[in-house]
């Protein structure tokens, strides 16, 4: 029913407000009773939902959360390590590459491999993992970015850089020889 109040949800004109003021006043007690009744009405409306509302909504919306919902359930606590992006297979390849780099550098200088990480490492992450992150990032970089990545390597890894450049920016993670 239109009682003279504008149907616009964002604005009501002054004349309509004055019209509403003709209503009888409401005591505090009456206002509380009315509010209490409205609260109970709201509760009753909510309770009138057919049983299983949560399950129906879950079933209808699970797919909207994406496939990660099921994957996360299947993997249980595996993602709790905080390195979910680094799959076990990729981690093994990165470790192999990092080990090869380390051996090459040690052979060249008889010194421990220099740190090549340039980006600010996340706090608390061991240096070894930071090295892995850098090399995986380089391996994943599009060919066009590889030159830029390579230019940031330190002198301690010059031999590997030359080798990577000779392979036109591609690195075979599965081959230790390719990393050399």
């Amino acid at each position, binding site marked *: 029913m239109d009682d003279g109040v504008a149907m616009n949800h964002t604005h009501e004109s002054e004349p309509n407000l004055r019209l509403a003021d003709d209503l009888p006043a409401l005591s505090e007690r009456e206002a509380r009773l009315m509010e209490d009744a409205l*609260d109970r009405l709201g509760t009753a409306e909510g309770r009138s939902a057919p049983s299983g509302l949560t399950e129906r909504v879950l079933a209808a919306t699970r797919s909207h959360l994406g496939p990660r919902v099921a994957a996360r359930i299947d993997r249980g606590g595996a993602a709790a390590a905080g390195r979910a992006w680094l799959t076990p297979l990729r981690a093994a390849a990165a470790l192999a590459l990092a080990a090869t780099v380390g051996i090459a550098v040690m052979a060249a200088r008889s010194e421990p491999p220099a740190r090549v990480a340039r980006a600010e490492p996340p706090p608390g992450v061991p240096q070894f993992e930071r090295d892995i992150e850098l090399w995986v990032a380089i391996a994943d970089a599009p060919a066009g970015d590889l030159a830029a990545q390579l230019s940031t390597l330190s002198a301690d890894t010059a031999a590997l850089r030359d080798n990577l450049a000779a392979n036109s920016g591609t690195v075979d993670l599965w081959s230790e020889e390719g990393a050399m």
Partner: protein
Amino acid sequence: MAHGQGREPGDEADSLPALLEGASRGDDTAWRELIERYGRRVFALAKSRCRNADVADEITQSVFATVATKLRQGLYTEKGRFESWLFRVTMNRVRDEVRRVRRQPVAPDSGAALEREPDRGAGGTGAGAIDLGALRRAMEELSETDRDIVELRHHAGLSFKQMSDLLDEPVGTLLARHHRALRKLREIMEREGVRGEGAPERGERAAAAERDHG
């Protein structure tokens, strides 16, 4: 207060960011918790306007589907205003449905289940109790603006601050409109010959109001 309405306990408010974070990462448990926490309130708001449980159920599913999509895509950016955002989505769905029903009416529920709700007064003994069925019928006579405020406050359970965020109106304006809506409801119910036990006659009410407000 009914269904923890907007004045939710501190621990619920504290856990909400974690639930949203978990849901955005696809955590099924977090998503279920969000649905359990807000599902009935969304349903209540939809049911109050649409008067049909099946329609309200569909609206509830649609609302949470939108929420899930936005969370997954990282498009939810209204930090600290989740409830306002959630019920803005709900109100939009409800209005879409109301417009659709005007073109193709859907039979409302009989309301029998609601009528059977025990009508307990504030004192627990029925004194001053208000008939919920009559109150619901009176709400249907309110303007959309007044009805929005009443339903957001008492069905969705939002605080006035949350309503202010949702409706983009000052809190003071909403307080005044809310009080006016209560007076209208009282007026409508009296016109229909319905008032609670112990409710004073109009003349007595005016006198009481004078005493209350000095």
